[in-house]
């Protein structure tokens, strides 16, 4: 009780809380979100650092004597035991999980950044200028939203002649920028009618500076929320496509390819340790990112704040 009181006093005398303070207070109020945030940071950093030390060639080496080794059994070569068992080729599931998670996360981040930057620029420009630019892009966005994008991504993946990871990121990005653009446009539209923008225009400020130095910082909280939730969505789409076999090329393991071991009914039921860890990993990661996203969203909207 006394701690809370002193805290309130401090806030009362200080200037209005900055964006980071608001976010921090929101996380302190919502313990699950805080736990998710800490967990995500630890897991993502851990996966990246650990994957650095894993020798991919040794990992993907087939050792048929260890075929479908159950979790905890000794390796045939005597080099240690399988923490999460082994797959059909006797390859360590745990090592594949770490490398796959690293790849899936890195690709989801890349797609989030590309679609985010493109979507934000298009949204800001459309919302600020309006007129024919806005009309044109809105028609394009409407079109993208109604087409069956998942199917088109799959078709593109199969007809692209030199298919590799950058190609996959580009194909995904082409279809996934529209949501961000639409949201940013609607926010920029109302923001550019504000007095401060009009004042800046009267002063003769360059449009470019108004858009990126004056309007964009005011939308930053919404942009952070949007990017966080997009990241979750992109992890879902990438792993889903890899699961179907249309995501990452076979040479690059992903969480989705690990889950796709379950396509074999025998593995699905008998050797569940091949696919279940990756599925649970994806599930927990999605829940965590979404929890963090929800907390950020509440922090961005004064009406919904808990703290």
């Amino acid at each position, binding site marked *: 009780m006394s701690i809370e009181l002193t805290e309130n006093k401090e806030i009362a005398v200080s200037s209005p809380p900055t964006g980071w303070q608001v976010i921090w207070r929101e996380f302190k109020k919502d313990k699950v979100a805080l736990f998710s945030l800490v967990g995500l940071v630890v897991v993502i950093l851990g996966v990246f650092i650990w994957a650095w030390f894993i020798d991919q060639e040794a990992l993907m080496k087939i050792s048929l004597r260890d075929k479908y080794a159950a979790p905890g059994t000794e390796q045939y070569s005597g080099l240690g035991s399988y923490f999460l068992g082994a797959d059909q080729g006797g390859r360590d599931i745990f090592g594949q999980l770490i490398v796959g998670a690293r790849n899936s996360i890195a690709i989801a981040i890349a797609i989030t950044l590309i679609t985010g930057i493109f979507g934000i620029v298009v949204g800001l420009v459309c919302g600020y200028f309006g007129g024919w630019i806005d009309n044109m892009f809105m028609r394009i966005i409407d079109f993208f939203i109604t087409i069956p994008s998942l*199917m088109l991504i799959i078709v593109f993946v199969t007809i692209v002649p030199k298919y590799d990871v950058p190609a996959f990121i580009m194909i995904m990005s082409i279809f996934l920028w529209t949501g961000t653009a639409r949201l940013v446009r609607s926010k920029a539209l109302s923001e550019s009618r504000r007095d401060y923008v009009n004042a800046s225009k009267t002063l003769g400020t360059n449009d470019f500076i108004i858009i990126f130095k004056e309007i964009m910082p005011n939308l930053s909280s919404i942009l952070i929320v949007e990017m966080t939730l997009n990241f979750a969505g992109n992890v879902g789409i990438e792993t889903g496509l890899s699961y179907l076999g249309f995501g990452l090329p076979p040479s690059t393991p992903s969480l989705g390819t690990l889950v796709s071991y379950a396509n074999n009914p025998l593995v699905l039921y008998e050797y569940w340790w091949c696919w279940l860890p990756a599925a649970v990993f994806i599930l927990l990661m999605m829940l965590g990112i979404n929890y963090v996203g929800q907390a950020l969203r509440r922090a961005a909207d004064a009406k919904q704040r808990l703290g």
Partner: protein
Amino acid sequence: MWKTIVRRFLIMIPQLFVLSLIIFIMAQFMPGDPFTGAITPETDPARIEELREKNGLNDPWYQQYGRWVGNAFQGEFGMSYTFKRDAGSLIGERAVNTFWLSLASVIILYVLAIPLGVLAGRYHNSLLDRAIILYSFVSYAIPTFILALLFLFFFGYTLGWFPTSGSVDIKYDPGTFGYIMNKIYHILLPATTYAILGTTTVIQYLRSEIIDAKGQDYVRTARSKGIPMRKVYSRHIFRNSLLPIAAFIGFTITGLLGGSIFIETIFGYPGMGQLFISSILSRDYSVITALVMLYGFLALLGSLLSDIIMSIVDPRIRIE
């Protein structure tokens, strides 16, 4: 009212045109041509050239495009070379299965979501409300293929409550009561999976509608007339909050189509989504183009349906 529908319909035409153009261009990049399946490696090259000339494959692209669209309107998409039969009728057969699966999904979705949404809104901030919010949060965050696999693993294999693949067992004769029951039995697990994934939006929308309605004047009027709260909920609030939910049906259809690829593949259900994946794997291009076009058309139809229902329900958003 009619003006809105007609205008909304007219907006659809350029979208369909662009989609068909993209698919046509994509089809040009795919190896193979409309009579793969009709020819074998032993066919004389001169005969192939003759066939190409006769079928107009040497014409300029806009003429080919025009003919392709014309054929597509009549349901002719060429031959499926893996199944050695007309792609249109093949898809038609699968479409029936997908239709039943979608219908079952929509019914289960609303049967689950409406009571949950109403309860969460009515007992706002209670423990029940929090549990329902948590449920809708988890169902929102979980990817389709993960939930489908977990369900298949748990209910299909571990507990053995449901069949793990197919749409009907061979031992039943079409048309009998057992056949229909067996079909429903096969549909139940995939449909429930889809329904659970779709409940989030309906629950959250319905919940916030009801919380909003609680503070409205008409509710206070009803209360002051002495109507018991139970009746206010069932007669006044529920009706008002339910109307916008109707509009979600269109979007639900669109979402179902995307999800059908995963659900049908995982549950081994012979619908259009599974056909799409197997055609991609066997490079059966006439089926692929036909399916993408059909899905695009249905998705547009779904959003059209939503807009029409919405404009019937809420006159403010009619396009004038």
